[in-house]
Structure formats: C-alpha cells, structure tokens
C-alpha cells in the first residue's frame, strides 16, 4: 500500500510534462517544482528547526543574482555562479544566525526580515548589480552549459532532480540523530539543552542547509527565466511564498511543501489571469487571509488536518 503510493507519486512526477503537449502545463509543472524546492528549503529551518524565517528571499536573491553577475562580468556559463550564490548565502546565514539563534525565536524572525530588506535596498540602488532594472542572462545559448532551452521540459527534470535530492537529504536528516535533536529542541528548548543537545549550533546548521538550497532555487529560477530584478529576487512576496506554501501543506512534514506548491501555484496562476496586472494587491490580501487562517486554526497545515480526519474516521469505524 505504502509502496504503491511511492510508485504512483514517482510516476506522476516523472511523466507529468510528457502527458501534455501543452506549453502552459509544462511551464506550470516546472513552476510547481521550483516553488516546492524553495519551500522545502524553508521547511528545514522553519518546519523542522522551528525558527520562522520571513526573509529567506535574501538567499533566493543571492542565488539568482550571482549566475547573471558572472555572465555579465566574464561571459562565463551561469552554472559557475551557482556556488558563488551559495557561498554568499552561507555568509549571510551565519551573520544572521549566530547572534539570533541563541535568543528567543522573535529575534530570528525580525532579523531575517530586516536583513532581507537591507539587501533589497542596497541591490536596488547599486548600478553594479543593475540597480532597479536588474540583470539579464544569455539570450541565445552558446552551448548546453548556458542552460538556455526553448522548452520547459529540460528545466522540469533539472528541478525535479534537485527537489528529489533535497527531499532525500531531508528524509535522511529526519531519521538521523541530528533530526531527532532538532525536533527535540523545537519541542522544548530548555529540555533539549539539559540533554546536552547543542541547540543553537544544530539550528544554525539547519539554517545553513536551508540557505544553500534556497540559493540553488534562486539560481535555477534565473537560468529558466533569464533575468532578475530586485523585486523578484529579494521582494517580500518571494519570502511569503515559501512560508505560505510550506505552512499550507504542513510545516515540518517531508511532503508538506510539495503538497502546498501543487495547490497554491496553479491557484496563483489562475488568480493572476483572473485579476490581471492590477490584481496583485488582491492576491496579497488573499495570501494574508490564508496565512492568518492557517495560524489560527490549522498551524500543522493540510497534512495534519488529514491525519486528524483519518484518525477520527478510523475510530468511528472501529
């Protein structure tokens, strides 16, 4: 039964872009995967370690800017910028994480949003990084290494490979000593400390891993779309998307972010079509409303709701 579920999930993910000969769905599929990558990366720190980052866009932006900056400066493959984005993200994660992860969670949340905003303002005014206009990548590919493809499908499988890697790492962490310690420190920090769990350094490792994969998501975004500006790299909506998608599906659940992305991204595409360009305000109101409702009634997200309903249904049957 469980095995059948895995096979079905794998089949759906692998065959999805091949089952439609329609660019709209192919595009949608890759967007869902990309959102699932950054939300799963957020899940490492926000879900498993219980420290709520509301500024993960800072890593996404770093990951998105570096490949195009490398291309702009030296005309090299954007691929070479991937590790640079990760390096910058790790530095930022350490600068935020070391002082705040020793304190109560509010400091961490406030620091993430303040640093994201700080860097957004600096990037928006820095001509070296294209200021408000941003950066553009290679228009026509010189070889496969420029990662410019006409179809969405190569991106789809690239994103899928990264997502599977990230989920495999998450799964391994969940089952390791490190994972148990992380969950223990989320459940009761003092109790965990008394059991000699090095809470703040473990949380910092989780944050650094989260930063790494969020940066990777930014790099993948930018090779697919070919350009980046301060709003789509460092904007508050980028951070909100990660939090909302993970919390909707289920923060701290392995497949929570993927479920959240599969629901929210198609919905988002539809509402954007429906409201048009002037409707961004309405989209934010809707997001805010969903976030408030999740927080108030279902902080465990859809997965936990499903578990509860199943338990209830199961007890009735018995």
């Amino acid at each position, binding site marked *: 039964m469980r095995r059948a579920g895995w096979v079905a999930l794998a089949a759906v993910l692998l065959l999805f872009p091949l089952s439609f000969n329609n660019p709209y769905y192919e595009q949608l599929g890759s967007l869902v995967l990309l959102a699932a990558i950054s939300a799963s990366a957020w899940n490492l720190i926000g879900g498993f370690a219980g420290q*709520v980052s509301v500024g993960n866009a800072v890593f996404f932006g770093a990951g998105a800017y570096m490949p195009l900056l490398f291309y702009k400066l030296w005309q090299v493959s954007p691929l070479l910028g991937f590790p640079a984005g990760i390096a910058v993200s790790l530095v930022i994660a350490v600068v935020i994480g070391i002082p705040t992860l020793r304190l109560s969670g*509010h*400091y961490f949340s*406030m620091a993430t949003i303040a640093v994201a905003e*700080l860097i957004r*303002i600096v990037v928006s005014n820095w001509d070296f990084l294209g200021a408000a206009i941003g950066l553009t990548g290679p228009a026509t590919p010189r070889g496969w290494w420029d990662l410019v493809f006409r179809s969405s499908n190569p991106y789809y499988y690239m994103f899928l490979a990264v997502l599977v890697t990230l989920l495999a790492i998450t799964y391994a962490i969940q089952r390791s000593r490190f994972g148990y310690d992380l969950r223990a420190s989320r459940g009761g920090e003092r109790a965990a400390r008394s059991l000699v769990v090095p809470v703040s350094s473990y949380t910092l490792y989780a944050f650094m891993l989260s930063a790494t994969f969020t940066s990777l998501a930014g790099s993948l975004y930018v090779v697919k779309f070919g350009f980046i500006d301060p709003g789509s790299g460092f904007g508050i909506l980028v951070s909100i998307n990660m*939090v909302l998608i993970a919390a909707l599906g289920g923060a701290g659940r392995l497949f929570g972010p993927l479920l959240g992305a599969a629901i929210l991204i198609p919905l988002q595409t539809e509402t954007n079509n429906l409201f048009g360009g002037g409707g961004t305000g309405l989209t934010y109101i809707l997001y*805010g409303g969903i976030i*408030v409702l999740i*927080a108030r009634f279902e902080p465990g997200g859809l997965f936990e709701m499903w578990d509860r309903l199943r338990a209830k249904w199961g007890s009735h049957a018995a």
Partner: protein
Amino acid sequence: MILLQVIVAGLLIGAVYALFSSGLTLVWGMMNVINFAHGEFVMLGMYVAFWAFTLAHFGVASFSAAAAVVLFMLGVLVYLALIRHVMRGPMLAQILSTFGLLLVLRYAAFWAFGANFVSLPDGILGPSLNVGGILLSAPKLVAGVVALAVTIGMHLLLTRTMLGSRILAVAEDRNAAMLMGIRPDRMQAIAWGLSGASAGIAGALIATFFPISATVGESLGLIAFVVVTFGGFGSVPGAMIAGLIIGLIESLSAYYVGPVYQDVFVYALFVLVLWIRPRGLMGKA
C-alpha cells in the same frame, strides 16, 4: 548650523519612533509576542487622521485622539480574535498570525485607498519657526514634543497607576496575578489596545508632515523592531532612548550619505546590536 538642524530634526522624528515602538515593546514584554503588523497600525493611524480631517474637518488634537481610539479598538479586536488563540501555540502560529495580518492590512489599504500618496495640507500646524538660526518645521516640532510627552505618559501609566500595576503583574506572573483577582485576559486586551493607541497617535502625528500611503508601514514596522531590540525586551524607557538614537542616526545618514540609504544604516545597526549587545540598552540579561 545645518548639522544642528539635522540633529534636532532627527531627535524629533526619533521621539515619534519612540512612541509607536513603546507600544510594540509593551506587548512583547508582557506576553512575548511580536506584532509584525505594528507598522500597519501606524499606517492606519495616518489614514484615520487624514479621513477625520478631510471628511469631518477635525483639528490636529481631535484627529490624533480619533486615531488613538480607533487603533485602541483595533488592538483589542486583534487580541481577542487572533492573538489570544495563538499565543500559547507553536512559534510558527504566533509569527504567522501577525505576519498574515500585516499582509491583509497593508494590501487592503492599498486596494481601498489606492496607490497614490495623499497628505494633509502643508500649513496645518502653522509655518516653520526660526529658533536661533535653526529652521524648525512646526509639525515636526509639535509631533516630537507630543510624542515624547505621550511616551512618558505611557511609562507613568505602567509604573504609577493601579491599571499599570495590574498589567505588569500579569506580565510578571500570570498565575500569581490571577490569584490576586486580576483577569489576565482583560489586562492583555488592554495592553494590545494601548499598543494600538500608541501606534494610532504616532501615525496621526507623522501624517502632519509625511505623505500617507498604504505601504508606509513597511519601513516604520522594521524601524519599530530595531528600536525595541535596541531598547531592550519590554522596556518603555529603553524604547524611548533607542527611538531618539535611531531618529538621529537616520537623520545623519540621510544628510551625509543620502536619503535612499537612511534605512540601510538603521537595519545594519540592528544586526550590530544583535551581535554586540542582544539584550539591548535596558533589557534584563
């Protein structure tokens, strides 16, 4: 002389920062909840002042009072409908609840009031004054002085009155307060009301000299985070000193480096404070 003018202007705006931040720190110290929508409360205070002036021809004193009353009620409402239910829940729920509220308030205002900036008429508080060669705008002078007075008033309310003692008793030990016949729920609702009112008055004061827009809460909210962290967990006097310092830093960096970067220096100071003195100026260790 210009430098002196920059310093005075910075301290005056800093007094307003101190006022709305003291509301944020009150709630933080009392129940360990951070209101991410606090900047949006200030923004709504600005709009209440604007509409009270435009529609009902309220004067400065009465529209500030109106903003205080409306935001007091909003604070109580937010506590009763939302915070009360999440404050003992997981951290994620606490932070998401007010973060979602931020989005709803900011973009509902954007949607309802439009993207255009509006402002109160220029001469609403009289012309600029020349005090010994320093040119002071009358609205900023009034705002700074009133804000300082209200912040001190809030501190006195908390430390010298029965109501304040009850609020602090709940902050200190909820169960012990309950045994003394204090209703924690009521005190916490009042604290949220006071927090909202401080944002409301501050918003009304800012509206007399600053353009009003739906997104103004973004930087104001972040400034409030910096002020309360710098001032120290739950400390109103700390927030007051920190507010003045932040106003000064902002004013000086706008003058020397450029107005675009004024917030950058403030946020950088935030990171610096976290590294060097995370408990802030007046916080307990």
